[in-house]
């Protein structure tokens, strides 16, 4: 990852660079929201309900007179945090399972991969719906659950990487100087499998954002009054015909951020995969 060639390669992927800027700006705007908007996300103003976009309310107001732009920014904080946390959880668990299975092989490998197959075969969205219903909709819990249901692909990818890495001469060398397994995995195996882990983790952020919004849409995600992009869309559905802006803008926010994350993942994949790297 610290290889300067990777950064040089990544910079050549123009769309990925633009996406990084977009993602950075979006995150900054969301987290600086208190200083960027004169309104509170839950400030009800009954004299200004259901206003279309205007100079005072850039994206209009909802049926309680709350400013939509403000709510998108504050909702973005929660949505982005859920995306990042669950991607971290899923990638972490997947890496651990994949590394242990690939490194130790034998019975451990068989057992862990069987477990992965089983987890993979249960349709994840229905399971998520059931699990989310016990969480009392705390956003941390929802993030962790989304992560815990999306580790299987990472585990498989990491395992197959580790299988080839553990045969490398430098692993042999580390073993011959008496390094312990834990140290070999951390210092020698995982750093060399970092490429696919990083790419998978990036794409997981986008996926988690979509999953969060779907859960919230079904009424099982983070509950109002805390806004997230998903539950804003749920609220907007009933007034879609008369106040379409309430439906259009939160969805656009999801679309843009997920697009950006996916393009970043794409750029990283090109930059980290030596086979497609052009010098």
């Amino acid at each position, binding site marked *: 990852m610290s290889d300067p060639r990777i950064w040089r390669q990544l910079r050549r992927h123009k769309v990925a660079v633009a996406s990084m800027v977009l993602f950075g700006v979006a995150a900054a705007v969301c987290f600086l929201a208190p200083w960027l908007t004169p309104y509170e996300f839950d400030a009800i103003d009954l004299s200004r309900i259901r206003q279309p976009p205007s100079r005072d309310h850039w994206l209009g107001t909802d049926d309680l007179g709350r400013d939509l732009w403000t709510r998108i920014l504050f909702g973005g904080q929660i949505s982005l945090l859920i995306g990042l946390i669950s991607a971290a959880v899923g990638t972490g668990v997947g890496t651990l399972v994949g590394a242990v299975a690939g490194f130790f092989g034998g019975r451990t490998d068989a057992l862990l991969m069987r477990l992965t197959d089983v987890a993979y075969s249960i349709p994840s969205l229905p399971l998520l719906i059931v699990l989310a219903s016990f969480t009392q909709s705390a956003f941390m819990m929802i993030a962790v659950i989304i992560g815990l249901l999306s580790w299987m692909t990472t585990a498989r990818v990491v395992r197959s990487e580790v299988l080839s890495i553990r045969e490398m001469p430098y692993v042999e060398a580390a073993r011959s100087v008496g390094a312990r397994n834990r140290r070999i995995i951390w210092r020698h195996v995982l750093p060399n499998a970092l490429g696919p882990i990083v790419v998978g983790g990036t794409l997981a952020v986008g996926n988690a954002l979509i999953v969060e919004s779907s859960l919230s849409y079904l009424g099982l995600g983070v509950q109002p009054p805390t806004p997230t992009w998903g539950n804003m869309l749920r609220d907007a559905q009933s007034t879609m015909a008369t106040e379409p802006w309430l439906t259009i803008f939160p*969805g656009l926010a*999801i679309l843009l951020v997920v697009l950006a994350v996916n393009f970043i993942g794409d750029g990283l994949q090109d930059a980290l995969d030596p086979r497609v790297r052009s010098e």
Partner: protein
Amino acid sequence: MMLGISVIIFGIIQAAPGGPETMLLQSGRIVDPEVIEAYRVRLGLDQPVPVQYVRWLGAAATGDLGQSFARNRPVKDVIFEHLPASLELMGAAFVLAAIMALLLGVVSAVRQYSWIDHLGTGFSFAGIAMPVFWFGLILQLVFAVRLGWLPVSGRQTVGMNSFTDHAAHLVLPGIVLSLRYVAGWSRYLRSSMLGALRSDFVRTARAKGLSERRVVWVHALRNAMIPVVSVMALDTAGLFSGAIITETVFSWPGIGRLFVVAMTQRDYPVLMGILLLGSLMVILFNLVADLLYGWLDPRIRYE
């Protein structure tokens, strides 16, 4: 395999707080603890958890999924009643996705870097980055609410039973459910076609003087389809998850919608039944993918 899945599903549902009796309490109709105890005994909820599991598994193996708490009818009947609507929707989405992906994938590969290729790339990135339900809402807004061309939701207009009415209701949900698959499959097919078009057997076919159309649509496509078909089979099981969202957006009376309703009613036997069915589908289509792979590519043989 199925055994592991059934343990997980059962365990998770068991861990769920508040059983059906809580729902009865909340409904305010029954408050007498004796009545509730009798109800629990009748449903077998007074037994220890492992006993409940073994009973449930034994019954499930013979096709009996238990009684629905909320509807007081066998789960099997409830599921089968909702299945045709879902299969219809999934079938329509599958056919639509396959046709669209085929056209888009082949044309983008044959005319690489043309406007249609760029359009396809943009479309699939957007298709994957969009929440399915939002795409559904936008289509409803444009085609049903604003333009009034198609019905907003449901499976048929009350009192009408014509084919065209039925078909009109199917259009929007079908498009919405197929979106993700068109996006994914057309990309796979594009890259696999690009590989096939550069291979030796395509050069040979051209050298034999075959028409370009035949070379592309028969020789190259047949080989390019091999990896795509197995991806398609694997994804088909996932249609089930997509159907939950799509059916909710369009109030489509299938098992996806049933699942969401059963969730709000805490109707665990129905939830378990649907989860089990969904897992069965995943395993089944995994098998189908393997078999298709061997059939399409004679070089692969399972011993």
